[in-house]
């Protein structure tokens, strides 16, 4: 199979997945539990992305003070909780990581 055919098929399937529920919503009966489940998609998906980034930055579980991303991430989480400010959270988290990287060899 040529790279172009692979690309086009992968693109079509990806697009189909992205369109799936958007297109079908309202045309099929959505069960009540599914409607309630949707509320948990954002916290579940975002946490599922964030936790491994913080707890296993180099691929293995690292819960120690040497894990600078964990320290910076926890600090950022605190800032997000107190301020609800996206830009401030990123700025503090990024600054914390860069400072820690510079200070701790």
């Amino acid at each position: 199979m040529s790279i172009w055919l692979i690309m086009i098929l992968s693109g079509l399937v990806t697009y189909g997945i992205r369109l799936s529920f958007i297109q079908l919503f309202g045309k099929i009966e959505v069960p009540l539990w599914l409607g309630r489940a949707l509320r948990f998609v954002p916290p579940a998906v975002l946490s599922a992305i964030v936790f491994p980034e913080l707890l296993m930055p180099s691929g293995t579980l690292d819960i120690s003070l040497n894990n600078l991303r964990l320290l910076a991430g926890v600090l950022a989480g605190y800032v997000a909780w107190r301020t609800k400010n996206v830009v401030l959270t990123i700025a503090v988290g990024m600054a914390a990581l860069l400072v820690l990287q510079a200070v701790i060899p």
Partner: protein
Amino acid sequence: MESKRAEFLSGVRAELPILIGVIPFGMIYGVLALGAGLSSSAAQAMSVVVFAGSAQLIIAQLVGVSAPGLVIVLTASIVNLRHALYSASLAPYVQKLNSVWKWSLAYLLTDEAYAVTVMYYNRSIDEQLKNVVSGASEYNPGSKHWYFLGAGLALWSTWQVSTAVGIFLGAQIPASWSLDFTLALTFIALVVPALRDKPSVLAALAAGLTAVLTAGLPLKLGLVAASLVGIIVGLWSESRL
């Protein structure tokens, strides 16, 4: 007209912090795609046709080792399965839009556009719920899809430009700058304020811990499993209250 423009621009603005992390990612893809033997035009076209970072990296690598075409397509599809969750999550908000809007927004539905858009819709739902007393009973989309479009197009253009830069210049941003960390930080900034009740906190914890335990699974299947566990725990917790 003014409000559409304003919505579009705030969508773009909300996406900006994420873009800092997307640029090195796009460049890395461009470099790796050429390294795997793709032509410049194929590497760039894939950013338009597939438009999904992780899947593109995997496709390029599998093409590089001459894996069978169907295996590659199947692999890319599994990696992108999580987008079905995003589609289901945003479907209620866009159901009143016409088909051209739905088809366009679906094309722009990436992790990064989803994250900022769903939080924006959630905030607007809260505002509308406060107005229930005044008679509003159904979700009114207003011009909020322009926010989605702004976030999606900001990401799309950045992805195209950064893959092009990767293809032509190679990786120039040193890894020690840790710019990839901005993605995790943005998601922290979005998810923490959304944890307003016990079920959503438990959903987040369950999903996060499952993701760590299943991180060894290939093809981002751990992410799908973790999300499902989080959703189930959230529903379970809610039904006990």
